[in-house]
């Protein structure tokens, strides 16, 4: 059991450390999918490993042992997990659960609030009267594209088309949901923060490439991004953005000014193998944990 726990943690740490670096070099769509799925696997693995560790200690509580029909003394004797690790696992599990709950409720509320706000809006694009240059898409399905009057006044029709094409890609490809999955996984395991940052950037790059194809001009998309970013900056929008997104606008612009990215299938393969290791070792932890509890049963049914 100790071996499988160590292996599961090692696989997890490998992904957390190398996932963002490798993912950053993948084409945006592949990076989004592989890193988000990876984050969810790592978060699930985190929860499961912590739960098994916690149970080796919780199972020794007399009430729980009697309810579950196993011997607390035997469990104490045969569990290879030191008590302080098991108790630490329990504490981390509770913290992760609490963080996930708080974040899920907060994001859920925001989803409802946004949906209510554009209920009944007859058009896909909503122009909001505001002197703050801004544009965003609300979650699909049934999402809307919101553009402020300050932005439409400052941009040429061609540039406006870029903004709408970019947001339309977010809507059509359900980008919010990828972001939310990565975001919730990070609530469970904060070590995933760099991974989530890369997913955020990848989703923007994905939409940029779509917009570039739609308007047939990568340079125009690059210029529009730079112009909107500077307009927002000049309008005094505070940079209250997580540090992980800093420097992303210049990177998006540069990526569009360079030729479109190659596919690099072997990079994706490395990540998938890492994730499979994580999944397999997690299953091993679950199995060995199961075996431990089967072995200490006072009433053996099988």
């Amino acid at each position: 059991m100790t071996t499988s726990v160590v292996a599961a943690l090692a696989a997890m740490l490998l992904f957390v450390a190398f996932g963002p670096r490798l993912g950053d070099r993948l084409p945006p769509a592949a990076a989004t999918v592989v890193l988000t799925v990876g984050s969810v696997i790592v978060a699930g693995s985190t929860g499961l490993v912590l739960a098994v560790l916690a149970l080796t200690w919780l199972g020794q509580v007399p009430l729980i042992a009697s309810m579950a029909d196993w011997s607390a003394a035997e469990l104490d004797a045969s569990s290879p997990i030191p008590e302080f690790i098991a108790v630490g696992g329990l504490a981390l599990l509770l913290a992760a659960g609490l963080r996930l709950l708080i974040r899920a409720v907060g994001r859920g509320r925001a989803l409802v609030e946004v949906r209510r706000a554009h209920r009944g809006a007859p058009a896909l694009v909503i122009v909001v009267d505001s002197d703050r240059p801004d544009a965003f898409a609300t979650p699909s399905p049934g999402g809307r594209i919101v553009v402020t009057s300050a932005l439409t006044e400052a941009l040429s029709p061609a540039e406006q088309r870029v903004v709408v094409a970019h947001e339309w890609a977010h809507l059509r490809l359900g980008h919010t949901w990828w972001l939310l999955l990565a975001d919730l996984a990070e609530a469970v395991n904060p070590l995933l923060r760099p991974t989530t940052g890369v997913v955020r950037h990848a989703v923007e790059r994905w939409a940029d490439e779509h917009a570039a194809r739609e308007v047939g001009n990568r340079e125009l998309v690059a210029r529009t991004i730079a112009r909107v970013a500077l307009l927002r900056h000049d309008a005094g929008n505070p940079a209250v953005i997580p540090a992980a997104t800093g420097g992303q606008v210049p990177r998006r612009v540069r990526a569009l000014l360079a030729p479109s990215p190659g596919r690099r299938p072997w990079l994706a393969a490395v990540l998938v193998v890492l994730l499979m290791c994580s999944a397999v070792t997690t299953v091993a932890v679950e199995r060995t944990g199961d075996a431990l509890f089967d072995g200490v049963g006072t009433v053996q049914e099988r």
Partner: protein
Amino acid sequence: MPRRTKGSLEREVRAVLTAASQPLTPGQVRDALGGDLAYTTVLTVLSRLFEKGEVARETLGRGYAYTAPYDAAELAARRMALMLDDEADREAVLTRFVHGLQPEDEHLLRGLLSQ
């Protein structure tokens, strides 16, 4: 009569104002809704709708008379205007065209634009 939720009461009040041909006082709105509501409840709903920018009002005597001058598109636009403020949870469910710039990004971008 079944209890109304906050949201459905707001919708009913807006519907009454939209249907009316002239500005309505809170008392008139209450009568139009069937009269089983407390005056203060109607007043609260009207002030909340006004704060959200979904209805307009004018002074009438010592109080206000309310109108609903916006169509569905304008209403959505007014509500979405409130979504422009950054707030962590909302930020996480919206996909923005660009986020903020770091101070050093500004020079970089101006350089890239002038190329």
